[in-house]
């Protein structure tokens, strides 16, 4: 009997079901995921279909072109920066089975389609078909329905191909820098787009936006979502061309995916070339444990814990992916928010940069930084048992973890305000920006220490830095979301100060922020440490992958 994609779909559903069996909290999280999926579907459907009732075609152009492109870009970026990939079906598991590449890719593709995000996207975008039906009759509706399905296939193949390729890159230690650059470029591409959109939206020049949307309609980003529009406007010749664009893109993506998939199957995980046999000079083992920059630390328990964390944030691909994401997002979002709102592109509006916006974006940087620690024990996995057996006290453990993480985050948090202030020509704001970032980072880390002790979850033992277990994706985003919310609440004084007492905040921001963040951090390590002392075995079972 030939293996069909249905086997893969069935296997995935079965693995999902077995993963949920007897795990009430996982079921609850799954239901929450379903709820969000349904919510997204309904909102999206209403937005997309509402254009069918508009008086002109402009809204259909805008929603089809820009909305469609947003959906595709979302599928591209969400797994990379936020959710992770559902690796319910790990390609490595199929390595020994006699499956040819075509069977495997089509099967994995079908399995990827059988999920909440794919269904939600399909439901939301089908609103476009309804709109096309209302405006252009049944033929337009039918063609747009084809476009909606093709668009979904494009989204799924895009997200699978990029994450697979990206994880393969990060896996090989030699190409890790390339991966960092790739992410930076991806994020950089978003910048001009957003600035353009903001500029256009501010001047309310819908024609400019419609022009952008029409151009996007000829790219793979939105070609599938503008088919109905072309029929409505009588450009029948465009339909086969756009279908060709979409089909060609999907084929290319699937081919790309199949190549990287094979790499993932045969496991290029242990690329150690260039390490192995090189002998280091005769330094002692304890000296070698400490990275060169940290050789000054004492050779003690705390020193060793810090050295271990510093080594791990770089050598563990999952953690490194986290750091890179923070560096890129933390640098670009504040720049975009502050420059974008000033409308630099048109050079028209000379709205001066606002201290409140700047402080808010610094708070964002600090909050985002703290989230990196949310599942710090999950990264360790069962290796953490060594620390339990050695009897490391909880507070010492957490202090060292904060120090190790801050070894990388600290410099970034120092540099980002400087860069932003220089771009905004407001060097005088740098101290208060440091203060805002320090306050938010301190609060964020403190909150996330509790999250890391209470809400740790196991990560699969693969080398794919984006892989999470079924359901854990929801946990991850839910806990991160709750932690971010708490941190924002704790950062309210910073907002208040920077808005209400602008004059004072400029000079008092740094000491006040550092004091506030430092106090939060001190309290956090102390109380989360006590919690950890009581919960070590429970934490260990939470981060032990189920076999």
């Amino acid at each position, binding site marked *: 009997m030939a293996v069909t994609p249905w086997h893969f779909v069935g296997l995935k559903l079965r693995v999902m079901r077995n993963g949920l069996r007897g795990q009430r909290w996982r079921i609850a999280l799954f239901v929450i995921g379903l709820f969000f999926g349904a919510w997204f579907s309904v909102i999206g459907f209403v937005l997309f279909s509402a254009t069918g009732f508009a008086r002109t075609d402009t809204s259909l152009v805008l929603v089809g072109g820009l909305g469609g492109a947003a959906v595709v870009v979302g599928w591209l970026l969400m797994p990379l920066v936020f959710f992770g990939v559902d690796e319910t079906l790990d390609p490595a598991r199929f390595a020994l089975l006699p499956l040819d590449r075509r069977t495997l890719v089509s099967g994995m593709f079908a399995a990827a389609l059988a999920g909440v995000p794919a269904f939600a996207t399909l439901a939301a975008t089908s609103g476009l078909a309804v709109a096309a039906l209302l405006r252009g009759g049944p033929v337009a509706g039918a063609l747009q329905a084809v476009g909606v399905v093709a668009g979904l296939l494009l989204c799924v193949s895009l997200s699978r191909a990029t994450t697979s390729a990206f994880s393969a890159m990060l896996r090989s230690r030699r190409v890790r820098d390339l991966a960092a650059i790739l992410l930076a470029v991806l994020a950089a591409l978003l910048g001009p787009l957003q600035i353009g959109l903001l500029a256009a939206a501010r001047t309310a020049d819908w024609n400019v936006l419609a022009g952008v949307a029409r151009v996007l309609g000829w790219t793979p980003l939105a070609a599938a979502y503008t088919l109905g529009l072309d029929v409505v406007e009588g450009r029948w010749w465009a339909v086969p061309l756009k279908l060709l664009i979409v089909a060609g893109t999907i084929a290319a993506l699937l081919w790309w995916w199949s190549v990287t998939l094979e790499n993932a199957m045969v496991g290029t995980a242990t690329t150690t070339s260039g390490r192995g046999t090189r002998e280091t000079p005769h330094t002692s083992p304890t000296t070698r444990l400490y990275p060169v920059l940290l050789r000054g630390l004492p*050779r003690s328990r705390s020193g060793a814990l810090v050295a271990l964390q510093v080594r791990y944030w770089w050598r563990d691909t999952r953690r490194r992916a986290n750091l890179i994401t923070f560096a890129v997002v933390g640098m670009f979002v504040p720049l975009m928010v502050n420059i974008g709102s000033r409308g630099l592109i048109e050079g028209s509006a000379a709205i001066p940069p606002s201290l409140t916006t700047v402080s808010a974006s610094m708070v964002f940087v600090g909050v985002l930084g703290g989230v990196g620690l949310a599942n710090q024990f999950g990264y360790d996995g*069962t290796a953490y048992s060594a620390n*339990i057996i050695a009897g490391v006290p909880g507070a010492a453990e957490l202090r060292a973890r904060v120090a190790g993480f801050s070894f990388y985050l600290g410099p970034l948090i120092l540099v980002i305000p400087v860069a932003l202030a220089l771009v905004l020509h407001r060097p005088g704001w740098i101290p208060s920006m440091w203060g805002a970032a320090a306050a938010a980072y301190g609060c964020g880390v403190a909150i996330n220490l509790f999250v890391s002790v209470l809400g740790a979850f196991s990560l699969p033992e693969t080398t794919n830095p984006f892989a999470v277990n079924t359901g854990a994706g929801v946990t991850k985003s839910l806990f991160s979301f709750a932690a971010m919310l708490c941190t924002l609440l704790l950062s309210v004084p910073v907002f208040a100060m920077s808005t209400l007492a602008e004059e004072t905040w400029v000079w008092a921001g740094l000491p006040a922020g550092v004091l506030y963040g430092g106090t939060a951090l001190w309290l956090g390590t102390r109380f989360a440490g006590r919690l950890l002392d009581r919960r070590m075995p429970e934490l260990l079972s939470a981060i032990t992958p189920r076999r």
Partner: protein
Amino acid sequence: MTFALALHGLAKRFADKVAVGGVDLEVPTGSFYGLLGPNGAGKTTTLSMAVGLLRPDAGTATVLGHDVWTDPLAAKRMLGVMPDGARLFDRLTGAELLACHGLLRGMPAAVVDQRARELLDVLALGDADRTLVVDYSAGMKKKIGLACALLHAPKMLVLDEPFEAVDPVSAALIRDILQRYVASGNTVIFSSHVMEVVERICTHVAILAQGRILTAGTIADVRAGRSLEDVFVQVVGGRTATGQELAWL
């Protein structure tokens, strides 16, 4: 007499399955104790509860008189552990990993350095090698795990499946080191399902199946003249081949 390790009524239940249903075990000081059992018998669960990695539902575990769950620091000082399947901090090199373990235990750096070098040398892991532990072979991983457990010279060693997936040369080396360790008055308990190893090196043996100790004592008492394998199959109970099944093979 105080036992090196004493377990009383240890029990653990996972969701709807009883993993360990009340284990009583007394390991005399200076013994080389083998914990035998089929796969899924609860060996790892029992040993995890004995060393403080898994909180038992009921029962106590004491190491040389110190309760693991009420006086953990004193107990853990006496204890060296090699958990099975537990990943080490494997993004470190062997030397870095040993240094980390030693310093975590609060040992002086000079002592850590000297012992780490000696262990790496004796276990043929190469002092100056820059290979990360994640890239070690299975046998090397067992050896570095053993080195980590031995580094602080514990009085009591708890090893989960130390001979699993280890080549004969490494196995012989591990055996030698453990025998010398016991000869100087220390105690070892390890789990295994390999009869030959247990029969050859252990002074005591206990057989665990379905979460209960079925028999325990000195190896001579348990065997009572038979081979350990016969005793094991008889105690645990299993299917005996009739020669008729799988005829198509």
